[in-house]
């Protein structure tokens, strides 16, 4: 058997020696923090125009994380390219000739994506939180308030899970264009739209993004029938399913 340590080191070298890694992760940080700051600033100035219910359910933590809607797309691109680039360049054959143990390979790639995205996500979520709160002025909350720290950490966990989900999808679909063509519209358009359609939205609540985003809410949503912990497990189940399906396909088919 190939040494998992050796494969990990090798995959780590691969990830850090291409520009796309750094570009996508910097974009994820900048967009999430920047858009979150913008929306926080606007919310602060428009607060007086909100209805009474909206004022009561105002969630300053979640508002400072609004940028994730766009920022997650960069995270998706990062994870998709980790695998997709190997398929589009033909390098996957060199990889599988060097590491024919395909399960080891997938696990090591997932571990490297985790190790790369989690620190960036933590940095992003804390920066977005503090910057957002500073711009929310009198409507701000603090890290010490109930559930706020959980929501900030939840945000980092959400970004990481989205990356791992995208990795699994990329192992399934191989070509980056296909994977991005599925994931980007899904997270940016389809899921948000379906969540607003009556009846369908009961199902859409269990989509990875809606379920996962419960982790970042301090004030529980009135429409989604489960809390942050359940949301985490639903999201985790999606990730596990995507990686498992990716693994089965990777093991079974020609490179």
């Amino acid at each position: 058997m190939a040494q998992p340590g050796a494969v990990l080191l090798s995959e780590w070298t691969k990830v850090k020696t291409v520009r796309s890694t750094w570009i996508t992760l910097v974009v994820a940080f900048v967009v999430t923090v920047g858009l979150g700051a913008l929306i926080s600033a606007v919310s602060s100035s428009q607060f007086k125009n909100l209805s009474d219910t909206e004022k009561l359910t105002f969630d300053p933590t979640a508002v400072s994380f609004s940028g994730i809607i766009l920022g997650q797309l960069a995270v998706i691109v990062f994870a998709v390219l980790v695998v997709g680039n190997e398929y589009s360049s033909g390098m996957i054959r060199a990889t599988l000739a060097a590491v024919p143990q395909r399960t080891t390979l997938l696990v090591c790639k997932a571990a490297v994506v985790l190790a790369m995205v989690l620190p960036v996500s933590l940095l992003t979520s804390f920066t977005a939180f503090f910057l957002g709160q500073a711009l929310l002025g009198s409507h701000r909350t603090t890290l010490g308030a109930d559930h706020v720290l959980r929501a900030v950490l939840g945000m980092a966990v959400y970004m990481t899970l989205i990356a791992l989900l995208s990795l699994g999808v990329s192992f399934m679909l191989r070509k980056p264009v296909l994977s991005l063509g599925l994931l980007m519209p899904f997270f940016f358009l389809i899921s948000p739209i379906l969540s607003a359609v009556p009846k369908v939205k009961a199902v859409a609540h269990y989509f990875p993004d809606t379920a996962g985003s419960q982790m970042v809410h301090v004030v529980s949503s009135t429409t989604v029938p489960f809390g942050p912990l359940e949301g985490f497990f639903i999201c985790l189940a999606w990730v596990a399913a995507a990686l498992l399906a990716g693994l089965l396909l990777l093991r079974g088919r020609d490179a």
Partner: protein
Amino acid sequence: MIEVHELTKRYGETLAVDRLSFQVPQGVVTGFLGPNGAGKSTTMRMMLDLDRPTSGRVSIDGKAYHQLSEPLKYIGALLEAKAVHPGRTAYNHLLWLAQSNRIPRRRVDEMLDLVGLREVARRRSGGFSLGMGQRLGIAAALLGDPRILMFDEPVNGLDPEGILWIRNLMKSLAEEGRTVFVSSHLMSEMAVTADHLVVIGQGRLLANLSMNDFIDQNSHSFVQLRTPQPEALLDALAGAGMTATPKDDGAFEVVDGDPARIGDLARDHGIALHELSPQRASLEEAFLRMTADSVEYRTHGEDVHRTMPPAANGWGADWQRAQDRNRQKIKTKKES
């Protein structure tokens, strides 16, 4: 030692590799020859466990490829040029490969020196020429100092200097006692590099023999004749126990004929000769004939496992027949 046993690969209706069995002899260059689409690359990918065989197996020193720990130390392979991420430098490409099989980092520098890429090692490989990409692929294959090397069409698209370099490299690798397995669709290329030949056509084994045997069996000499009196010449030759085979362009061939004897015979019978030239059949032609036969046997649904087509007598005629039959087939196809 690589053993391929009853290897079969089916893509839907197409049988790309058909119960292929052979062994790759150790310490020599083995040419894996076949026309384009014969199943060479598919076979090589199955040998590396990249493609899953429909049935059959490949063993390397008695083990399946995926059972090898650190396979780059057993087998180095060059499958396709430029199977590298265009944004990664040559150095980093070799580095991740080395790390995955716990190959010391100094081997990366040594290989870059060996293939002459040291100057561009820190450049992103996307800007590499085909030749440079091929050199990088060879550096990757040699990285783990493997006993076995596999090259898939290594000279494709290379300039003459690059071709010469690869030829010499393969020879020197075999001289070091390594096993070299190299595919090609060009007989002429194999003739100058290979010691042993494995020939396939339409996924089936056609020949598995040493290069010397192949030359002995296929490189026949013949005499080409032209005359304004063909009937008289054919009679005279038949009288002397020689068979002349007519060619498309009106000339005749006498396989293994002696030009002096034929010349004398023509003079004795008063036949004018417009051409009397000793010739040698090229290995390329022998290879073409062999693979054309594979097409022929296949379409007739016969289960022929002849490794060598009949030699000597009427080999030009055989080739001719195969050609005619192919033409006939094309015609029938068009009509239907």
